[in-house]
């Protein structure tokens, strides 16, 4: 660690690949937060919702397991699928979509960063690492990698 020998004390140049990654993530997360707020409002303004937050929250706080929390609720317990797409018109489905969008946005951000690393910065090693990270995340998203809960 050392001080830079720069008489003008100028700011170092910021890598564009980092900016591409950060900006994609940042605005994607803002969008997902806005959708999540809207989803929560819809949830609380829907009378007699099939997926009531008070049902889910009371079961969660009672310490029930995942299967028991979803039992008898408006949707069957999700089993290795993106269940919220089918429930997008409900508050709970829209809220979950908002959260999922925030989680998903890492994939395009990694690909955008890889593109800049390959084409603008000439750093293929780190471009390949970005692609590998994106592929693992995509595999998890599409369900190639699954969990032993059914």
């Amino acid at each position, binding site marked *: 660690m050392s001080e830079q020998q720069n008489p003008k004390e100028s700011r170092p140049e910021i890598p564009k690949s980092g900016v591409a990654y950060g900006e994609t993530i940042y605005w994607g997360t803002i969008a997902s937060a806005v959708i999540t707020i809207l989803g929560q409002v819809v949830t609380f303004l829907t009378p007699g919702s099939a997926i009531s937050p*008070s049902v889910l929250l*009371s079961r969660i706080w009672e310490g029930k397991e995942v299967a028991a929390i979803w039992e008898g609720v408006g949707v069957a317990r999700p*089993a290795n699928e993106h269940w919220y797409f089918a429930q997008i018109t409900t508050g709970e489905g829209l809220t979950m979509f908002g*959260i999922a969008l925030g989680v998903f946005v*890492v994939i395009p951000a990694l690909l955008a960063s890889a593109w800049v690393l390959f084409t603008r910065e000439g750093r293929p090693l780190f471009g390949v690492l970005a692609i590998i990270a994106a592929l693992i*995340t995509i595999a998890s998203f599409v369900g190639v990698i699954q969990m032993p809960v059914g």
Partner: protein
Amino acid sequence: MQDLMKKVPELSLLIGLSIVGYFVMGAFNQVGEAGALTGGGAFVLVLASFILSVMIAIVAVIAGVGGGVLFTPIMMAFTTMDTLIIRSTGLVVAMFSGLVSSGPFMRKGLADVKIVLYCAIPIIAGAMLGSYAAIALAEVMGAQGDAIVRLLLGLILVFIAILFIVGGSNTEYPEPGHVSRFSEWMGLKGSYYEESLGRPMSYQATRVGIGGLLFLLVGFTGGFFGLGGGWAVVPVLNLVMTTPLKISAASSGVLLAMGNSAAIWPYIKVGALIAALAAPWMLGQVIGGILGAHILARVRANFIRYILIVLLFLTSLKLMSRGVETLLGIDIPVL
């Protein structure tokens, strides 16, 4: 604060939307009573979660640990919630402050994209293995598995607190010393503008190979306990790889978001991540994450250590007592 709102209009938008949203939810609440919760009770719970989440995110982003380090142990220690639910929500809490702070950190050059990408692969692989192991343990062992998780988590928190104590203040700008050939080849070096000193600083990461192996372990622990792994990312980057504390904290947030995004999908798809619980925590992390990221550039990160150390020790005490209570069937009057 007013300056920040002007400089970051999207923060004003989010705060404004949240205030209006929660006001509308409270004023026109249509949620019926269920179990022990009334519609009003559900709203208060959601609002309280949101406010607490904002506070946790600010502290967590400045310390570079991710909110999961505080959320998961506190919930496991002081609530009866299923640990799978806590861990999945903990990953969201750990992830979103890191997600939203990625923008400001990258823009300011505080997070190093090369370090992030190098560490991402072992972190992601470890986090996925950890998530898999956590779900398998919950399925096989039930309450006994929960007790083991609580006990282990308590011990890990003590270890983390000790790491923060031993780390001390002299690691803010570590000297690299000998740089191995592999570290040199990887080229994990750079410079950033240190606003608290008013001058640019340069750095060079060392012990890159050992760092990579440690990140695999960090990822596993993060995925398994739902902590997110940020608690260990900063010490590994700072103490092992000799990266400045501020670069370590900022890169840690970005890494957390990247690593957890792969680990979290299995939880979402099996219904272990429930929006009614996770949404206010996620929103709080987004707003608190932006605030924390802008504060980080101006503060010396050391004082945050002390807050964390106290919180970690208190929570670990409760966690270990709960783990032992369940495993041995005894009552320990702690907290």
